[in-house]
């Protein structure tokens, strides 16, 4: 089962880079005449999410509670990337 309505609502910097909310089409993105696979966009979103969460947690003070920050932020980025993949490309 796939929540199709979520797909049109997702937006973010990476989506703007790849041509706005056009992720409903093929799982490959044309950039300067070359097709990049969808999972690459997901990986970029994961990296961006990890960095964004780090900044957010530093500003809100949540960061002080964490230990093993590298693993935590990497894991959060991975979860974000896999979530996007599941919603957009997943079966």
């Amino acid at each position, binding site marked *: 089962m796939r929540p199709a309505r979520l797909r049109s609502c997702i937006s973010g910097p990476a989506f703007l880079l790849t041509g706005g909310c056009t992720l409903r*089409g093929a799982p490959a993105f044309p950039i300067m005449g070359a097709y990049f696979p969808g999972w690459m966009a997901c990986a970029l979103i994961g990296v961006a999410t990890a960095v964004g969460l780090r900044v957010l947690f530093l500003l809100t003070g949540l960061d002080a509670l964490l230990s093993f*920050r590298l693993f935590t932020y990497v894991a959060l980025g991975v979860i974000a990337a896999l979530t996007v993949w599941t919603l957009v490309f997943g079966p």
Partner: protein
Amino acid sequence: MQRIPVSSKKPVGIIIAVLCVGAATAFGIHVSHEDSAHPSSDSGIIDAEVVHIASVVGGRLKALNVSVNQRVHKGDALYQIDPEPYELTLRQAKANLDLANAEVENQTRLLSVKTSNAATAGDQVSRAQTNRDLAARTVERLQPLAGKSYIPWQQYDQARVALHDAEISLAQSRIQSTAATTAIGDLKSSIAARDASQAAYDRIRYELRQTTVIAPADGYVTSLRVKVGEVLAPSQSLFTLIADNEWYAMANIREGDLEAVGVGDCVTVHSMIDRNTPIRGHVQSIGWGVLSMDSSGIARSLPLVPRQMDWVHVAQRFPVRIRLEKANPLLLRLGATATVEVRHGAACP
């Protein structure tokens, strides 16, 4: 300014870290399984069947009714080869056929003449038989008379000679009758000659028809680069027709994912000409063989085995053929890049 230690041993932080890493690992395994169960490929191509248009007869290109990239319909006349040589040959074959027909009629007349001759010879036999019987009866009657000298011996002798003559005449007429019957013969050879001429005539007529080339299917003309006047050899291809009635997508799927691909499975295909329009298709077949570098070599020769020590082997991929349903013709161009999603995607809810 407060310093934040890199790794402070706070139990809450450790719990959060373990939870996050555990969730990411479990989610990763789940996504990996999902990906294997629903194979996809972004290196597919749009494919169609092609016909190399050629005529089985050769000659000078006299009329060309199509131009490159034009759409044609099944039955349209595509081009014509100069029919004159074939028309002349057809006339020759027609004359041969008429000759053979006339020969059959001639032989029929001859046959009836020979049949009459044989009948006449048969009548001759019965006449000679009657004459011989008469001569034999005469000899029989004269024999006792001549024995008692009631008639001259000369008369009896003449009757015996006449009988001998009549016997020879009968034997000769029998031989003649047999010869005349044998000479009747039949029409087999002239009929066979006529059939051969008819076949030659039909063959030339077929060749004359083949000087006009008809489109075998709806499609698009490609690779046409010649004009009227080109001389074509028999069976020389003039251009390629891309058949438009069926379109396919060919996607290479890794062997490990093939068990998740079944014939008839719904497939979402995106032609990269417009990556926002999904095309629905169904798996038609999965390729049964690809050429492998490890099994190459000339047949009947020794196997070619490269010396190597590979520890990592890249998965082989097999072509999966997907038959597309009706789609916008502008999206379907042979060789266009396509992404293929088996049993998921926008076209397979």
